[in-house]
């Protein structure tokens, strides 16, 4: 597994599937600050709340049963203490919206709309309808592309909304979230389509 973010020694580690996530974190030298949560499986992965990390089993069936998660591409990105999964998920959906191949309408329009709404929510300046719209659009986009790019993108987002309910409530209430200044979680590259 690739372990990155809030750990002492980011890198690639060979992991026994019978292990628990706490062991993986220990192998990476432990966390620098108490984990604020983690994204398992890369940008198409699943956000996990901090409390579930230590004892999380890694074998695929139990991961799926317990959290609907999978190892995906094998990347574990650990959120720093005070970091905000809602903000990071908004950054990721914005990146993935820009990475659409532009073929299917629901992906092109849906991910762009989700990106805009999540940006407002992340900045704690949501429109009153944004929360309902995000929930609806997640369902509206899923399964409607020829490829699974949109499915993975909204899966990541919906898991973040579930794992960071408290944070989401703060953002929706317009309270400033200090997670926006917390560094240490890998940021997606700036969206850009120049090479096309």
């Amino acid at each position: 597994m690739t372990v990155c973010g809030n750990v002492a020694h980011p890198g690639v580690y060979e992991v026994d599937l019978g292990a628990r996530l706490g062991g993986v974190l220990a192998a990476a030298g432990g966390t620098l600050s108490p984990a604020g949560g983690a994204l398992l499986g890369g940008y198409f992965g699943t956000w996990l709340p901090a409390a579930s990390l230590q004892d999380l089993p890694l074998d695929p069936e139990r991961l799926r049963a317990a959290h609907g998660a999978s190892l995906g591409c094998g990347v574990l990105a650990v959120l720093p203490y005070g970091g905000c999964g809602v903000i990071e998920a908004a950054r990721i959906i914005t990146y993935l919206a820009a990475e659409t191949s532009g073929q299917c309408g629901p992906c092109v329009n849906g991910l762009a709309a989700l990106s805009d709404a999540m940006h407002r929510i992340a900045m704690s300046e949501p429109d009153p309808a944004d929360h309902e719209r995000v929930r609806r659009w997640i369902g509206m986009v899923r399964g409607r592309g020829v490829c699974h790019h949109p499915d993975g993108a909204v899966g990541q987002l919906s898991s973040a909304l579930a794992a960071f309910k408290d944070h989401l409530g703060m953002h929706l209430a317009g309270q400033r979230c200090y997670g926006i200044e917390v560094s240490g979680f890998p940021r997606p590259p700036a969206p850009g389509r120049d090479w096309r």
Partner: protein
Amino acid sequence: MSENVQRRLRVNPILCDGVGYCAEIVPELITLDDWGFPAVDPRPIDGETLLHHVQRAVATCPRLALLIEEFRTDRG
């Protein structure tokens, strides 16, 4: 065990430009999302009248993005 051929409507989202005629013709099976692209009911097409409407929608689509797919259900 008998085999039963049924039909369902499918959309090719790559070809589809969200023109929207299909949802006018078969609102029973097609609803438009917030951006005007069709979401198709994947259940089997039930009845001759509905099938006729579906055929009309397929023929009308200027992007040729709709198709009627036959599939088999095995009934034990």
